[in-house]
């Protein structure tokens, strides 16, 4: 009330006494009005801008600066030019980490997107139950760390209930998180389990935007569910799917907590994903300069992938209408 009456937005129609009073006070429209808007806008933008500068812009710039230094947090940073980047290019563990991360993302996003799409379509075409939608979301309500620990216990080779069941049916126990072949797919699937419901709901929201009469018309023309999925659902869902993919791929590249609680990067670096390697360099070995250089590399990789995905999927365009 106070704010609105002290600086009236010129485009908003003010009615009655308040509008008249304001007009009579400021006396004229135009330059004075827009200056008032500017101040008001600044007041509104300030909190978000402050947050952006303090928590994003400044850390990013400082991170980029630190990537050119040798820095252990406790003594002043020492400028070393491109040394950290040269070291990164020659560091086989960095390249291994990047490969492991890409494999993880491929499994995680591949399985998750297909499953989420299937769940979303089923939710849209078969049921309207809000309870079911809620159930689908349940794993997402659990924290990553808790989900990781629960699965760690379920899948423990010797004591886990999952392996007890496998052994009970006469099969060999599977070292899900302790074997270098199994560990990354297992972690990827644990995260699919946690995120698939949320992804499905996002896609479901996209499906809701597709006009129902299209399906009705197709039905009249004799199209089956399978044909309608490929000819109507997929093309019209594409922009939403593209945005969901971009978001989930970025999230997937940043996998850390599940690895930290289940395998700690092991066995023998088999799950040493990039974020975990960066964390180790920074917080265990105090090599903040090198860790920053690797973070900058991750930033570049993610930006490139995002731009590429955006272009390839034409995420900015819709085929609707």
């Amino acid at each position, binding site marked *: 009330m*106070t704010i609105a009456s002290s600086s009236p937005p010129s485009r908003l129609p003010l009615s009655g006494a308040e509008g008249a009073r304001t007009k009579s006070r400021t006396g004229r429209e135009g330059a004075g009005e827009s200056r008032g808007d500017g101040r008001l806008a600044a007041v509104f933008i300030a909190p978000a801008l402050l947050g952006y500068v303090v928590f994003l812009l400044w850390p990013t710039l400082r991170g980029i600066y630190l990537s050119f230094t040798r820095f*252990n947090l406790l003594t002043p940073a020492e400028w070393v030019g491109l040394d950290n980047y040269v070291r990164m290019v020659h560091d086989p563990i960095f390249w291994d980490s990047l490969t492991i991360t890409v494999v993880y993302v491929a499994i995680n996003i591949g399985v998750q997107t297909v499953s989420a799409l299937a769940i979303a379509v089923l939710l849209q075409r078969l049921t309207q139950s809000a309870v079911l939608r809620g159930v689908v979301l349940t794993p997402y309500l659990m924290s990553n760390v808790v989900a990781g620990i629960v699965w760690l216990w379920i899948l*423990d080779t*010797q*004591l886990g209930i999952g392996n007890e069941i496998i052994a009970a049916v006469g099969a060999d126990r599977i070292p899900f*998180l*302790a074997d270098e072949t199994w560990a990354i797919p297992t972690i990827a699937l644990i995260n699919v389990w946690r995120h698939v419901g949320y992804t499905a709901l996002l896609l479901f929201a996209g499906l809701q935007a597709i006009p129902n009469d299209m399906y009705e018309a197709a039905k009249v023309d004799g199209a089956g569910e399978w044909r309608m999925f490929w000819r109507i659902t997929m093309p019209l869902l594409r922009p939403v799917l593209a945005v969901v993919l971009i978001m989930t791929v970025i999230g997937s590249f940043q996998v850390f907590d599940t690895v930290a609680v289940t395998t700690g990067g*092991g*066995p023998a670096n088999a799950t040493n994903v990039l974020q975990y390697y960066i964390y180790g360099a920074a917080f265990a070995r105090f090599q903040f300069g090198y860790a920053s250089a690797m973070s900058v590399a991750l930033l570049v990789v993610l930006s490139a992938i995002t731009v590429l995905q955006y272009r390839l999927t034409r995420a900015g365009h819709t085929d609707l209408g």
Partner: protein
Amino acid sequence: MRIRLHTRIRTAVTGALALSLVSGCAQGDGTGASANTVTYWLWDASQQPAYQACAKDFERQNPGLKVKITQMGWDDYWAKLTASFIAGTQPDVFTDHIQRFGQFADLDVLEPLDDLGVKDADYQPGLAANWMGQDGHRYGSPKDWDTVALFYNQKMAKDAGLTADQLNGLAWNPEDGGTFEKAIAHLTVDNKGRRGDEPGFDKHDVKVYGLATNGGGDGDGQTQWSNFAASAGWTYTDKKRWGTEYRYDSKTFQSVIKWYFGLAKKGYMAPFTDYNSQSNQANTQVAAGKAAAAFDGAWMISSYEGFKGLDIATAVTPVGPTGKRATMMNGLADSITKNAHNKAGAKKWVRYLASNECQKTVGGYGIVFPATPDGTKAAVAAYRRKGIDVSAFTEPVDDKKDFATFSYPITNYAADVYALMHPAMQDVFGNGKPVSSLDQTNSQINLILDQ
């Protein structure tokens, strides 16, 4: 209206400032930093009551001084300690581990303690000397110690026909494993009830392993391979302290590792895939009845004794090719932070923690072996009152003729050594990589130490 708006903004800003000042004060209270308070951090919850008792005596003897003890779990402890050094909210005094000593010395966050008058002779051998930095200054005051011994399930041993005397008289060698390997094989039982040394034993279908696994052991192998490597005459580095070259490329070391991990290949020791640092450590394997015995440290005595329905006893480490038994003797210390808020009070508190008086108090709780001989005696007596025989841990310290004790490797770049050795040993144990692959890891480590 405009005036009112400005007034409101001003009020809001003033309010925010006031709030931050208040929270700033609250933060100050949180760390307990003040002229008459000494803040002290430790990670072992079971030790807190003992040190609380010391603090009470200390406060009585030093009117006006208060000790504020904060306990947090191992992982949080080091993360918060690191963060506190950066934020300037570090404790005045903290429990220090030898593995971190090199790094903290590099980071220059520790206060020299030369004027505390810590004398080597007042403590169990080697404990005080380990906390001397490369610059000749002391950075830790001896607090306690631990050794490693063999915990075993008495019922399983009895079923196997193995007596306590036999288990305390084992010997091993890297060729055929000696009587130690025979005993471990005999303790192993497959799902058809055949023992590891009996014909037809199925190593792929083991019900109870003779020996539990604690993983690859990283660069120290404290509760894994260290007692074998040391009793074969191997040492981690070229010097006792602050060595400049590691020796993971030694043929002796590699033969020990090959034999030790080979126990898993034979089905006598739980395989690498059974181990998980979170969900299934050696003690869990023993508690679950999946393993008959496990090498573990004195800090685990209460855990093993607490296993419901299991009768656990301990035996000394086996005699090695050198003719001696070996066990790692590790000691914690109290360190003062360089930017301690109350340095004078901190020094008084550390001097008291290092005193026989406090160490005897701590010993009386029967949860840890204090560093002074009298403190150790008090602990042994307290354990005895609980019905626990701890001689497998104390004998190596008392009997220098038959036992060799050795320390954690103390060098610079300990975190880098860990980062390289942790996956390398997992590769050998879990993926069957040849032990000779450690040659390359060793060169990488020594290259880092050369910097």
